[in-house]
């Protein structure tokens, strides 16, 4: 049913539709409205779940790990500092191949302290072994959350659904929430073959010596590879029952003959699409690639998506100080096997929540017309605000 909802509110309703057994909650801006809305549903008897108000994110992640390990569908949400605090547990959950779902309401990691949106939190845990999916709108965030529960239990991998904090979480827009019957038909009961069960006792998380460790890591990597097809398959199934797809691994828009492409993750891609509509006559019509699955990284799909491009702008919402962009570096690496790879221009935008205006589309295309355009820059940094020695 179509409703005007705040993003967080819609996510809470989506989580309730998935009927989690255990929800762990620790508040952090900008995820707070998600856990608040869930607790309201619980208080009013609209959701029956074990709602555990934990004392830190480290415990939030540990609680959902324990719950899922014991055979329960489990959910939590966090952001920024909270993701960093639970990062040790995140590596643990994925390494133990325990299926569960977490929303990351993307927010900059301090110091200095920032409450505003960028993707440095989910970037910081990209190597944790979680599946990481990014959403361009609140509708996609709702749909991806529902799909995530199924992806997790069919791959035995935890799934992080990433949505830009404030930009999506605190934005009201029109969202179509599926009804309970549709969700029940789409999402089967939680099943975890290796769950802790006295009837079939197993030991989880044992000490693994060098005789076995590389094999463990290899099998994790292989499972992530197989998850690529699963992510596409489950999106297709979701489209069958709701009429809406979320973009599978990635989507491509724009003229087939385009020579310039722009790729990004999350809500910034929506702003690029709007900018393209507004400025394509003035500056040119680019191909817009929306990357949804960041881990596993869809290398083959990306190589196909950039065919024919001379230049590719990669928008980063986080940086690795001393290296440059993160997504940009990975895209360059993945495309390096192509004989005719497009020239990659990697620009970080909107760090710490700086607003990304509609004119950015035009500015990006203008910037790369210059043959001496930098291959990496924090493009919206105003160097005049810094003393000369810090530029």
């Amino acid at each position, binding site marked *: 049913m179509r409703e005007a909802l705040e993003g967080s509110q819609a996510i809470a309703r989506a989580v309730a539709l998935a009927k989690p057994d255990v929800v762990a*909650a620790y508040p952090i801006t900008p995820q*707070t409205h998600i*856990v608040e809305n869930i607790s309201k549903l619980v208080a009013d008897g609209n959701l029956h779940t074990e709602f555990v*108000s934990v004392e830190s994110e480290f415990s939030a992640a540990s609680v959902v790990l324990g719950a899922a390990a014991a055979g329960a569908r489990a959910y939590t949400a966090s952001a920024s500092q909270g993701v960093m605090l639970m990062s040790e547990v995140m590596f643990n959950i994925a390494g133990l191949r325990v299926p569960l779902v977490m929303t990351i309401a993307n927010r900059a990691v301090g110091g200095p302290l920032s409450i505003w949106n960028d993707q440095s939190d989910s970037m910081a845990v990209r190597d944790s072994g979680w599946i990481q999916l990014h959403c361009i709108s609140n509708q996609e965030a709702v749909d991806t959350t529902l799909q995530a529960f199924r992806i997790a239990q069919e791959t035995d991998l935890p799934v992080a659904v990433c949505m830009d904090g404030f930009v999506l979480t605190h934005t009201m827009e029109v969202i179509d929430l599926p009804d309970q019957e549709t969700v029940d038909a789409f999402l089967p009961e939680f099943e975890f073959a290796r769950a802790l069960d006295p009837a079939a006792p197993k030991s989880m998380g044992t000490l693994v010596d060098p005789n076995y460790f590389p094999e463990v890591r290899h099998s994790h990597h292989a499972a992530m590879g197989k998850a690529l097809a699963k992510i596409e398959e489950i999106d297709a199934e979701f489209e069958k029952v709701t009429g809406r797809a979320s973009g599978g691994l990635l989507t491509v828009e724009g003229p087939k003959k385009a020579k310039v492409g722009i790729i990004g993750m999350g809500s910034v891609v929506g702003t690029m699409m709007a900018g393209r509509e507004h400025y394509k006559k003035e500056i040119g019509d680019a191909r817009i690639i929306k990357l949804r699955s960041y881990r596993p990284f869809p290398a083959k799909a990306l190589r196909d998506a950039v065919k024919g491009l001379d230049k590719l702008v990669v928008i980063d919402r986080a940086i690795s100080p001393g290296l440059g962009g993160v997504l940009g570096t990975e895209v360059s690496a993945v495309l390096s096997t192509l004989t005719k790879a497009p020239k990659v221009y990697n620009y970080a935008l909107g760090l710490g929540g700086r607003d990304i205006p509609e004119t950015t589309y035009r500015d990006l295309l203008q910037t790369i017309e210059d043959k001496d355009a930098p291959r990496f820059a924090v493009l919206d940094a105003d160097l005049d605000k810094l003393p000369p020695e810090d530029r």
Partner: protein
Amino acid sequence: MPQGSDNSKRLSELRMKHGRPPASPSEPTAERTETLREAQPRFRGLESGHRACQGCGEALAARLVMESAGPDVMVANATGCLEVFTTPWPQSAWRVPWIHSLFENSAAVASGMESAMKAKGKNTKVLSFGGDGGTYDIGFQALSGMLERHHNVLYVTYDNEAYMNTGIQRSSSTPHAATTTTSPAGKERMGKRHLKKDLLSIIAAHHIPYAASASVAYPADLQRKVRYAMGVEGPTFLVIHSPCPLGWRHDSALTIEVARRAVQCGLFPLVELDRGALTNIMPIREPRPVSDYLELQGRFSHLFNKKDYRAQEELDHLQALADHNIEIYGLRGEGVDPVDTTGMSHVKRGGPLAGRN
């Protein structure tokens, strides 16, 4: 404050002016003619102009603490309201050295600062500030470690009984039956299900030299406790009840009255502990019923719904908790207090109550 070589001279001046003992025998003691103003040490460690809400109990508590602590301190401050409203870049309301790191580690950061002072032979006192979230919950581990290692740090927790900075979510310090955004009252819930964590008992079990509870409604008592703790060598702990008009849903003019009633009904006992043993209490001459305290606050309004049988049950429960405190801490005081310097038994401060009657 001038940079460079004159810092130590300036520091001596400030210490003499504000009553701290000289750092060494060779440092000159004060020879001064005091103005009345100077006779009252009021060091503005926390300056005005910060961005706190109207009526903020925590801002008041912090100011009182800093006045008594004096200039020769450094502060480690956890994430929370105090940190956010005092340091909007590029401004700061702090006139003392101050650091904010994360939410969960102010006690650990303070431990490091104190270790540096020891290593360098300096005796600048280290203060560690946190809200109830950063102390009772996410910062608990770091606090326990600091106390166990016996660092010379005064830890002050500003207890506004929820995660206020992020929007009024419950903490383990939230009182039983209080509504917060993550423990809302509803058809199947009457606010927070669990009890307010008895933090002072846990602190007592660490057997530190001094621990106490205080309230913004009793500023002289609060400042006495701060000055005492400042003089103790070793870990000290202070929990200050700090009403939040926004989160507790009361008129911002009622902050002090709300805090006072919390003490007078027994729900927030004012006590002092020496190595875990109870050594002093603020007596309650005429205990008020808990409803006098609860009725001022919107976060308890569901307990006054006469149509809900659960409301009276919860009121009785809270009254029992208050009665229990009064008994175990021995809070009953008989008759008029001969040393009633605050005149609490006779004076009604602030004029008629705004808002609810």
